């Protein structure tokens, strides 16, 4: 017999051996004791918590030759056959490999016959979530009312994939993740039986790696034993599991809080040098920041983090000057980086980048503080005056301010917005040629009047892309007979337009607009463009700056603006046009 891994060798054979699932074993035992045994069970839970083991134990408990009992004897032929997987009346079916409706039909054929030796015919379907929809549906009737000699036990990690019609026909048992101390205790029991010397600290490390799953923990233990033999040293476990040095993690956090970019990069180099897995390091870092956040939030993290008091105190000191919000932002960045590291082919780089980003994170001001500052500002004008104006002026300004503050609500509505809105609506000042005037111009051009702006607007209606190109051109000559456009030589627009097809298009459009045959010519320009007619874009920006000047003049002349300037001791930075609908 070759070597059997620990997870198989120490698979629980009685309900007593089943660790951490007392709620399940208790219920099942009571059911057996009182003779209220359902005909279909569904065991769900994470990997390696005892679903398949429970199914086998239950099968043994039902079929044991000593009589149905809560603790199977594990000696009779029925029990040993089930353990070995050779029982003729217990079918352990791999639901993920036998997924089709035909497999289920075969099973239904089989259900009809009485068990050959035992009390019950038991069907254990493991990984049942992989059955096809048809297979599930084919099972429904049998599952609801099976013959009295048949029991079904389903096991799966993904109960959400089962149809509700299946779920409603089964007694469901949810297996829990196994708490750390219980795993450690079980590991201790096993290593004692295997006569291996190992410290509790090392076992805890192994159990932590298992993350609530017994099989994961045992696989890791197996690996450790294979590496170390009979005597296991703590440092061997550390090396083998790649457990990241706590000091390095704290150093990382310290560098981040100190905004030390070089230090952060150095740490990544160290991590690389030690041969740590980057993703693993990132996850450990996430764990540390989680602890830091918890420490900040509740103060006493002992029950949430599996750390010693000394370690907690170190972390507490580490996060002393950092705000909770900031820690949470760090944590968010790390979490996002984790998925990226998993996908990246260059994980080191991702880690470097996220740490640099964390070290460069702009400090946040808590909202509470901002609100408090705002409240100070909102209080009677004294606050404002004190901040902006020299103190000897204060009394006078305050008197002036008082009436202004009272009239403030009415002022804007009465004067400024209507004025602005009016201007915005007046057609002549619109920056873009509106469709209406363009149409009008198109009509006037029937008489043969040449007009560049009108032509571009006309083109925009037909071919927007072409119009965009034209906006960059300088209309050197525009008349009904000939059009000459200038573009800087080698520019993107010139290269696009010089295409023969485009020219043909343009000529056609010009013809349609001017109602006569128009010759279109392109001219490459080089050197200074001074003295040439401006492009539409330039014209537009000129118009806009003129408009801004005008608005500025209006604003400066406004009494409210003047008052604001005086109170805040400010300057006018920019003037923006409202769309007329908003409240000022």
């Amino acid at each position, binding site marked *: 017999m*070759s*070597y059997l*891994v620990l997870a*198989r060798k120490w698979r629980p054979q009685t309900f007593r051996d089943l660790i951490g699932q007392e709620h399940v074993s208790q219920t099942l035992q009571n059911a057996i004791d009182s003779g209220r045994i359902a005909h279909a069970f569904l065991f769900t839970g*994470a*990997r*390696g918590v005892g679903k*398949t083991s429970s199914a086998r134990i239950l099968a043994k408990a039902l079929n044991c030759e000593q009589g149905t009992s809560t603790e199977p004897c594990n000696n009779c032929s029925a029990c040993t056959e089930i353990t070995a*997987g050779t029982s003729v009346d217990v079918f352990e079916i*791999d639901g*993920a*490999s036998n*997924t089709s409706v035909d497999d289920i039909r075969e099973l239904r054929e089989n259900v009809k016959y009485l068990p050959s030796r035992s009390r019950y015919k038991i069907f254990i379907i*493991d*990984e049942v*979530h*992989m059955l096809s929809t048809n297979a599930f549906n084919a099972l429904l009737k049998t599952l609801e009312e099976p013959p009295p000699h048949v029991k079904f036990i389903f096991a799966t*990690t993904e109960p959400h994939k089962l149809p509700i019609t299946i779920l409603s026909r089964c007694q469901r048992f949810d297996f829990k993740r196994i708490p750390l101390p219980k795993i450690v205790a079980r590991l201790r029991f096993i290593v004692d039986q295997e006569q291996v010397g190992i410290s509790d600290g090392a076992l805890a490390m192994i159990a932590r790696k298992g993350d609530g*799953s017994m*099989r*994961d923990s045992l*696989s*890791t233990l*197996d*690996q450790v*034993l*294979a*590496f170390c*033999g009979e005597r296991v040293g703590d440092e061997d476990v550390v090396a*083998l599991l*790649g457990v990241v040095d706590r000091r390095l993690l704290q150093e990382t956090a310290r560098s981040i809080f100190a905004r030390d*970019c*070089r230090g952060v*990069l*150095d740490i990544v*180099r160290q991590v*690389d*040098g030690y*041969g740590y*897995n980057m*993703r693993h390091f990132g996850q450990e870092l996430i764990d540390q920041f989680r602890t830091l956040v918890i420490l900040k939030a509740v103060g006493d993290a002992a029950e949430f983090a599996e750390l010693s008091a000394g370690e907690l105190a170190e972390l507490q000191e580490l996060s002393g000057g950092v705000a909770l919000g900031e820690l949470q932002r760090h944590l968010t960045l790390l979490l996002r980086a984790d998925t*990226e590291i*998993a*996908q*990246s*082919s*260059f994980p*080191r*780089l*991702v880690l*470097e*980048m996220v740490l*640099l*980003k964390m070290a*460069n994170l702009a400090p946040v001001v808590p909202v509470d503080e901002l609100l408090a500052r705002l409240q100070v500002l909102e209080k009677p004008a004294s606050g404002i005056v004190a901040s902006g104006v020299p103190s000897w002026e204060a009394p006078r300004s305050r008197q002036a301010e008082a009436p202004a503050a009272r009239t403030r609500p009415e002022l804007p509505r009465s004067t400024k917005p209507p004025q602005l809105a009016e201007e915005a609506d007046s057609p002549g000042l619109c920056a873009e040629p509106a469709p209406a005037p363009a149409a009008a111009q198109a009509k006037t051009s029937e008489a043969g009047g040449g007009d560049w702006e009108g032509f571009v607007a006309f083109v925009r209606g037909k071919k927007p892309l072409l119009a965009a190109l034209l906006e960059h051109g300088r209309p050197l000559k525009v008349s009904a007979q000939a059009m000459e456009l200038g573009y800087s030589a*080698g*520019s*993107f627009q010139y*290269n696009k337009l010089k295409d023969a097809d485009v020219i043909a298009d343009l000529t056609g459009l010009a013809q349609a607009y001017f109602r006569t045959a128009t010759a279109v010519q392109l001219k490459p320009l080089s050197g200074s463009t001074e003295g040439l007619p401006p492009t539409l874009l330039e014209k537009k920006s000129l118009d806009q700056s003129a408009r801004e000047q005008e608005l500025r003049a209006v604003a400066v002349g406004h009494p409210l603006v003047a008052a604001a300037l005086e109170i805040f001791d400010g300057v006018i930075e920019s003037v923006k046009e409202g769309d007329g609908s908003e409240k000022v």
Partner: protein
Amino acid sequence: MPYASIIGQDRSIAILRRAQAGGKLAHAYLFDGIEGCGKRKTALALVQSIFCTEREGCGRCAACRKVAALQHPDLHLVEPDGAFIKIDQIRELQRELAFRPFEAPKKACIIDSADRLNPAAGNALLKTLEEPPGNALLILITANPGGMLPTILSRCQRLQFQAIPQPAIEAYLVAQGTPAETAGIAAALAGGSIGKALDVSSETVLQERQTLLQRLLSLSLGDISPLFAAAEELAADKEKAQEMLELVTTFLRDMLLLRQGSGDLSNRDLLPLLEKGASRFTSASLMGLIEQVAATRRALFRNVNTRLALEVMFMRLAEA
């Protein structure tokens, strides 16, 4: 000695050897490590050491040579068929494993790129992986354990293969006859993978790198036709586009490191160009660009139009 021909994985090999010597070889292993760091070689060496008729993996006996040539009747190799490993392949494997071994002491199976098991196939493997028929040995190989079912991970003994340290790669390349300077750069760019180092160390690739960097730095929004031309050209080969993005990332990273005053550069030979680039950007914009390149990579993984994605990225580069 096949084990001896594997570089930089002494730790993993030591673990396997000790397990073997102590008769504690598990039935299912997961070899996890970056692409090209020797996982498959190690797996084959392990199978050889079990199948070998002479000593522990002599590499010369009939059995060893059959394994090396993947011709051994008791060795089954499962690889992705197209994009995925499909359930029929797993069913076929289960059938094979149910037989007794022909000549070797046990059956062995290597599943390469195990992260590409599609969901049905992965689930179908679970029962076999937990309690294989006979005493078969299953070795799963992956560069991306995050993409695998937790239920599979939990059933295997996991062996993490380290990225090979830069000096070891450099030494290996030099021993292969690569000039020392090229070897240094290739080792820095390889990110711990021998396979990649060999790729990079060819003269043309190094030269291409320089032209790429020059091209990137010369992009501007003022004249966008070369930008579009570059995108079109680089998008022609999708595989290559991915590699190119990686290179761009290393360039940006080097510029960032230059700005932060750290000297641990990957592209040492391109220092003057990098310095020129570094002076053009700010740290913040560099980080933004790296983010941008990462986003483009993700987009390519999701099968977007390569050319459009590259165009957008180049425009962002030119704009910064």
